[in-house]
């Protein structure tokens, strides 16, 4: 046991906890005033629902003793046997319970990211069912494949330092899939849908950036130089991406706060799988390219007329895809001996495995999410009635208003 490592992992877990409500604020600022509370509540609901799912069986399915390289067993149901003694296969120097807590925060933020796809018309009860099913049937198996001892992608040698594939690709692609099932918002593409509060979005982005130090730095699972390296590359990529997005928007018209904030988040997404494996110049390139990729993907998505409302696919799915591929290009054993060399250092194998893990995450997340969404839509309906949508979800689903009184 190492008290320094433990202290850092506990702080990192707390930092990541902050990110899930921050996703709610980030998204809440971009929807219309009548849906701000509803949008924030989606993220908060994931926080409370997946905490319980995770300690009951989610953690065991993901990290429990492997069954056939595809899923964990239920041996650790209800955290049975998960206690103060370290589980050396995952983290030698901290209690097993601390590793469980750290991983819980990742399991929580992932479904919260997806909520951007269906804001302003999701039926709240259907959303809870979707979230529980998605976590159990998509996140838990995929995270087991990549991170669980015995998981088949882990065995192939795929690198994913803090969850680019497991979290960002899976959430981004799931967002696209569910947006193709749920009906679009009434008047989408015709009436103006004004962001209610840009400051809320900026505040969300600031808290996300802050929390991301725990997300990426904590993934070293130790207070060591690798954690330092991850924090540094994380900060660099966020800045490079934010600057790039600002430049893109300036070239088109004017540099806006909402675009600067979006760029920062996209850079954080892209560096996530790579932060513990790549050097400083690579971090700048990864951030800058991520913004270009996501920016043009948003424009393309709009032309397709899919109401994937807050562009989770473009920002998380595509920046995550770029980050996973970039890890296969720029990773270096000189940075992290436990990693591997990428294509630029003469190792084509890692590049191939990264592409494979991206494809697996895409196909699995899209297919499974599409089926889950379709099943819920056909049985109880994913969306509220048109009239409830027009009144706004804050009042129709939750009986509250964000600004009451005169």
């Amino acid at each position: 046991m190492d008290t320094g490592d433990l202290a850092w992992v506990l702080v990192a877990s707390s930092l990541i906890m902050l990110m899930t409500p921050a996703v709610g604020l980030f998204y809440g600022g971009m929807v219309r005033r009548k849906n701000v509370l509803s949008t924030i509540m989606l993220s908060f609901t994931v926080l409370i629902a997946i905490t319980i799912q995770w300690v009951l069986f989610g953690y065991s399915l993901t990290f429990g003793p492997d069954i056939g390289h595809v899923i964990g067993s239920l041996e650790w149901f209800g955290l049975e046997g998960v206690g103060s003694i370290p589980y050396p296969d995952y983290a030698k120097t901290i209690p097993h319970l601390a590793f469980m807590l750290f991983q819980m925060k990742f399991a929580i933020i992932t479904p919260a990211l997806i909520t951007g796809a269906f804001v302003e018309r999701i039926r709240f009860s259907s959303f809870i069912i979707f979230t529980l099913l998605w976590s159990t049937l998509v996140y838990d198996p995929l995270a087991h494949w990549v991170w669980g001892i015995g998981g088949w992608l882990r065995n192939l040698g795929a690198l994913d330092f803090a969850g680019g594939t497991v979290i960002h690709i899976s959430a981004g692609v799931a967002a696209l899939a569910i947006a193709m099932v749920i009906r679009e918002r009434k008047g989408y593409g015709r009436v103006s849908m004004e962001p209610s509060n840009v400051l809320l979005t900026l505040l969300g982005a600031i808290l996300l950036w802050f929390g991301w130090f725990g997300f990426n730095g904590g993934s070293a699972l130790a207070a060591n130089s690798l954690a330092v390296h991850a924090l540094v590359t994380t900060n660099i990529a966020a800045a490079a991406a934010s600057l790039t997005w600002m430049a893109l928007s300036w070239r088109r018209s004017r540099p806006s706060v909402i675009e600067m904030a979006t760029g920062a988040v996209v850079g954080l997404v892209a560096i996530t799988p790579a932060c513990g494996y790549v050097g400083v110049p690579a971090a700048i390139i990864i951030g800058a390219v991520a913004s270009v990729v996501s920016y043009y993907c948003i424009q393309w998505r709009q032309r397709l007329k899919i109401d994937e409302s807050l562009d989770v696919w473009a920002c998380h799915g595509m920046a995550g895809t770029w980050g996973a591929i970039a890890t296969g290009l720029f990773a270096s054993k000189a940075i992290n001996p436990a990693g591997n060399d990428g294509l630029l250092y003469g190792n084509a194998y890692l590049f191939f495995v990264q592409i494979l893990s991206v494809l697996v995450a895409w196909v699995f997340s899209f297919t499974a999410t599409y089926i889950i969404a379709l099943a819920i839509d056909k049985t109880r309906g994913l969306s509220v009635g048109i009239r409830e949508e027009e009144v706004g979800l804050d009042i129709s689903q939750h009986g509250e208003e964000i600004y009451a009184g005169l």
Partner: protein
Amino acid sequence: MKRIEAIIKEENLDAVKAALEAAGFIGLTVFNCRGRGTGGGINLEWRAGTYKVDLLHKIMLMMIVKDHETTTVTDIILEVCKVDATSGAGKIFISPVEEVIRIRTNERNEDAL
């Protein structure tokens, strides 16, 4: 010239605006307002119970139109807002306007509309 002041539900604004625009009525002014009619309000959620809101958010849409356009405009508003109309659907007030001046050009009355 007439002033039309229509108090309508917030959720009908987009549809009213689109219907007016389709009939060639572009200019309008919109106010956020609160008020009550005979319906008496709704209950919203409080920590462990509900509380009564007796002044509800509405939109007041104001337009100044030529006399002969008045019925066309009010018919459009009525047609949209009557769909599924429940208590609280609103009211329309019509009153005469003495003079209109366009600030940029000093044009007067109907030329300024």
